[in-house]
């Protein structure tokens, strides 16, 4: 067996080890990257910026489960930091049972972290019930989206903790989509399309999304038609948003997505190298076998 044949038969455990090194080693070094500002990310950022402070809350739906939280939770954290720093009210919900656990966990953590920073800097803290509300998981996705359009408080009679939504300051005078400036769906599947079908098409609600990179290519047609006002694409989108929030508000907190861009870069370069190397070894071995026949 010559070198190219040995390379073609390279054991998968060696490949696993190499990709692990490509991801782990860059995490030990601090790379300063200048993040871009893609039009789809700016669309979402500008939409939230345009909401008047301490007015009607926007709606963010955690339509994902722990399997995709690596890409989507950094987006949720960045958007929440943006909302809290710019005094925008927010309602959190989920169409999935696991999503609501993520919604409650992430939101509580970010609110606690933000309040520690706000107290230190002498800024306004965020209060549950006034600045943000976590709504309970409700089954029946399409029915929920349509039901919000008719009556938000009928759809969510209580919040996640059992408080009647009638009594919450954040939801005062919020009856349906007419009072909700934008609905953001963070999803690892095609749920944002359902939000367009039921909330945008029927009720003209503005929809934005944060999606895993796997499904991002599918959603570009909706950006062009304006059915999405903005879109965050995977970890890169989360990193761009974190960068925007850091530039404009300088909120304290670890930028998970920006830190993740260095191993992401090296992993991509490694994969490209492996594709090229795999093809070269394949064609050389093929040629050698043809010659020997």
């Amino acid at each position, binding site marked *: 067996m010559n070198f190219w044949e040995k390379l073609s038969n390279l054991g998968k455990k060696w490949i696993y080890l190499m990709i692990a090194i490509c991801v782990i080693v860059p995490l030990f070094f601090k790379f300063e990257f200048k993040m871009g500002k893609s039009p789809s990310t700016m669309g979402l950022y500008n939409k939230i910026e345009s909401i008047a402070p301490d007015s009607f809350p926007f709606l963010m739906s955690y339509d994902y489960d722990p399997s995709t939280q690596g890409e989507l939770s950094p987006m949720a954290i960045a958007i929440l930091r943006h909302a809290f720093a710019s005094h925008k009210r927010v309602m959190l919900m989920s169409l999935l049972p696991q999503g609501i656990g993520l919604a409650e966990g992430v939101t509580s953590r970010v609110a606690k972290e933000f309040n520690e920073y706000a107290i230190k800097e002498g800024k306004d803290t965020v209060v549950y019930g006034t600045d943000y509300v976590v709504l309970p998981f409700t089954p029946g996705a399409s029915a929920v989206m349509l039901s919000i359009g008719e009556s938000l408080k009928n759809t969510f*009679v209580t919040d996640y903790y059992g408080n*009647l939504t009638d009594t919450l300051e954040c939801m005062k005078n919020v009856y349906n989509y007419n009072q909700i400036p934008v609905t953001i769906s963070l999803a690892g599947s095609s749920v944002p399309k359902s939000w367009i*079908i039921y909330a945008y098409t029927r009720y003209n609600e503005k929809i934005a999304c944060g999606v895993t990179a796997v499904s991002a*290519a599918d959603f570009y047609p909706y950006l062009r038609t304006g*059915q999405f006002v903005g879109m965050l694409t995977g970890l890169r989108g989360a990193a761009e948003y974190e960068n925007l929030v850091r530039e404009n508000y300088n909120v304290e907190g670890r930028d998970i997505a920006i830190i993740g861009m260095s191993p992401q870069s090296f992993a991509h370069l490694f994969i490209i190298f492996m594709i090229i190397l795999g093809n070269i070894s394949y064609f050389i071995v093929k040629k050698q076998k043809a010659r020997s026949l």
Partner: protein
Amino acid sequence: MSTNIWVWIAAILTLAIYSFLYKDNIIYKIAEYLLVGVSIGYTTAITWHNVIIAKMVVPVVDYHRYYMIIPAVIGCLMFTRFFKKVSWLSKIPISFVIGAGAGLGLPLAFQTYIIEHSKDTIAIPWHGGNTMLLVDAILIFIGVVATLVYFFFSVKHKGVVGKIANIGIWYIMISFGATFGFTVMARMSLFIDRMQFLLHDWLGLIH
């Protein structure tokens, strides 16, 4: 290094899952079965608090919406599937949801998918003299038509139709290439997240 017992539990379970990369083993299997049990138990508790209490008990007890008992009774018919003689009753709640869902979705899906996207494809505006935008719009029009022709198998892909379908193949390959590139990005991101947890939250080795 973290002194929080829960972080250690999370780290050990993460490594138990990664042990599968070496080979399938009993530690991985235990973690897998534990995951199934915990996630179903979690769903049960969330369903109790967020659905049964919030959607059924509170509206009836606090807001006196007694008519909510009717859909609850229809929903209970689903459990008749475990009893052979009356199992046909379990099809009633399924029919309700499917029928209503199909009726609600039909005009909306048509509007969302067909009308909006056809409108955007056919309308090729001049965009005030921006040639690149005009070129983009023409390329999109050609691509959409060619892709649709490729998937139209009622006519043989020969002659003019064959040539247009061939153009469609190229557009589809470009779309799949984009999807593949993004898929690599997505998979790596998930692994990067776990490594950040192990190296930062658990071992405290990175910033």
